[in-house]
């Protein structure tokens, strides 16, 4: 299943990117090679004096003539910097970050190497100017390439970032284990865990680690939850007769983990507060109920799907 979905994400991603790029090339939707006409009066100095800051008015028809695949709502005013280069040439740096600026400009800017500005070359023509940008093409395929390379590095950083916190908690956990604490903890929750994980002996260290992982998750202590969880996976894997194949207990544990009840969804509350909510903590109740529903369903689903033919344990082959 994971094989198919993993492949599907990549295939759908690359094909969509290629499809969009072909559509844009066929329709020339960035107006490549079509100069922008700037008439006398379209380029207005922001204030009298030596400042380079101007405002460029681009009429709706002119936008539509270039960005053929989208409907342009009306004239836009773009803040620009104007750099004269002799009498008949100049360059114009467009600030594309504003809210009212068409998104196309921002995409062009990004494709040409800068997220905020887009540089056009001006030639004097009669009373006004003619502006050209560098050609923009295959935007989405380039985006896909950049994203893939960037995230590959990020993934390694995430994994390496776990080392410190993992070492700390696995060290502390080892002490607790040798002192017999993890087994005590496992016995304490025995009535629940024998039903959830029938294949795991009730006083197995895996149970203690799973309980600690879930407790840490409920309290929103993600940094401590991951080491506990990975420790639990290691313990569960010791009970695994088929290396490389997930056991029923592992799947049920991860079902509990991914849908886990969080008592205080701290990040969501913080974002709501920052966005000016009148009651940021309002979602505590709703997310508690939603995740409780999901957790209960997740456990039931994991038990049911384990019996489905294609997922059955007996049918899964070890390495």
């Amino acid at each position, binding site marked *: 299943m994971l094989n198919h979905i993993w492949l599907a994400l990549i295939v759908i991603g690359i094909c969509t990117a290629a499809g969009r790029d072909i559509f844009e090339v066929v329709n020339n939707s960035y107006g490549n090679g079509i100069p922008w006409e700037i008439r006398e009066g379209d380029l207005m100095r922001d204030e009298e004096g030596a400042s380079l800051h101007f405002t460029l008015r681009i009429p709706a028809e002119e936008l539509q003539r270039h960005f053929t695949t989208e409907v342009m709502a009306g004239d836009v005013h773009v803040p620009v910097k104007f750099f004269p280069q002799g009498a008949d040439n100049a360059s114009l740096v467009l600030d594309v970050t504003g809210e009212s600026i068409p998104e196309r400009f921002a995409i062009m800017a990004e494709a040409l190497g800068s997220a905020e500005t887009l540089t056009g070359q001006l030639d004097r023509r009669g009373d006004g100017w003619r502006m050209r940008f560098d050609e923009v093409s295959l935007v989405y395929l380039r985006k896909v390439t950049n994203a893939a390379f960037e995230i590959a590095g990020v993934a390694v950083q995430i994994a390496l970032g776990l080392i410190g916190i993992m070492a700390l908690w696995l060290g502390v956990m080892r002490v607790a284990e040798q002192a017999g604490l993890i087994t005590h903890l496992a016995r304490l929750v025995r009535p629940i865990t024998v039903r959830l994980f029938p294949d795991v002996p009730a006083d197995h260290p895996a149970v203690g680690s799973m309980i600690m992982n879930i407790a840490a998750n409920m309290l929103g202590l993600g940094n401590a939850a991951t080491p506990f969880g990975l420790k639990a996976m290691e313990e569960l894997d010791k009970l695994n007769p088929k290396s490389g194949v997930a056991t029923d207990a592992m799947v049920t544990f991860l079902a509990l983990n*991914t849908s886990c009840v969080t008592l205080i969804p701290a990040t969501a509350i913080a974002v709501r507060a920052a966005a000016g909510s009148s009651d940021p903590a309002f979602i505590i109740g709703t997310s508690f109920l939603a995740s409780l529903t999901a957790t209960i369903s997740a456990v039931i689903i994991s038990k049911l799907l384990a019996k489905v033919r294609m997922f059955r344990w007996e049918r899964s082959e070890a390495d």
Partner: protein
Amino acid sequence: MDIFRTIVSVLSAVAIPALMLFFLVYGAFRKVKVYEVAVEGAKEGFEIAVRIIPYLVLMLVSIAIFRASGAMDVFITLVSPLTDLLGIPAEALPMAIMRPLSGSGSLGIMTETMQAYGTDSFIGILVSTLYGSTETTFYVLAVYFGAVGIRNTRHALPTGLLADFIAFLAAVFFVGLVL
């Protein structure tokens, strides 16, 4: 609700130091050579983190490709007739689809959606409830299974995704109930 909040926030502040203190002191009491044993355990941290790398790289790259291509918009157009039938608001669909795929992506979508529709509107509360009530399923599966070298994940992904879907439906239901 405020008392509940206070209790949980105190608990989450106290939990880590208290746990550390309790584990180590109890260990010493039980004659465990705490430092030596802790160092032994800590060595594993490096191995596990390194073992996760290939799983995490491949998983995150495929998700990044999907996101960068803008395929999500296409996907939303395809599934929206179906979700309309279920009475699910189309404005919350990007969040529902992104949540299991990417933590940072869904954080961005939550922020954008709340800016567009208001933090205290039905949609605003719905997306933040969604963010708060589920985990990044793909990431968790890659890390947890990666740590023990599991490649055949059997029904783990369908279970996680179905649970995410149920969380979404439950969020729509409960937010509708209180508003």
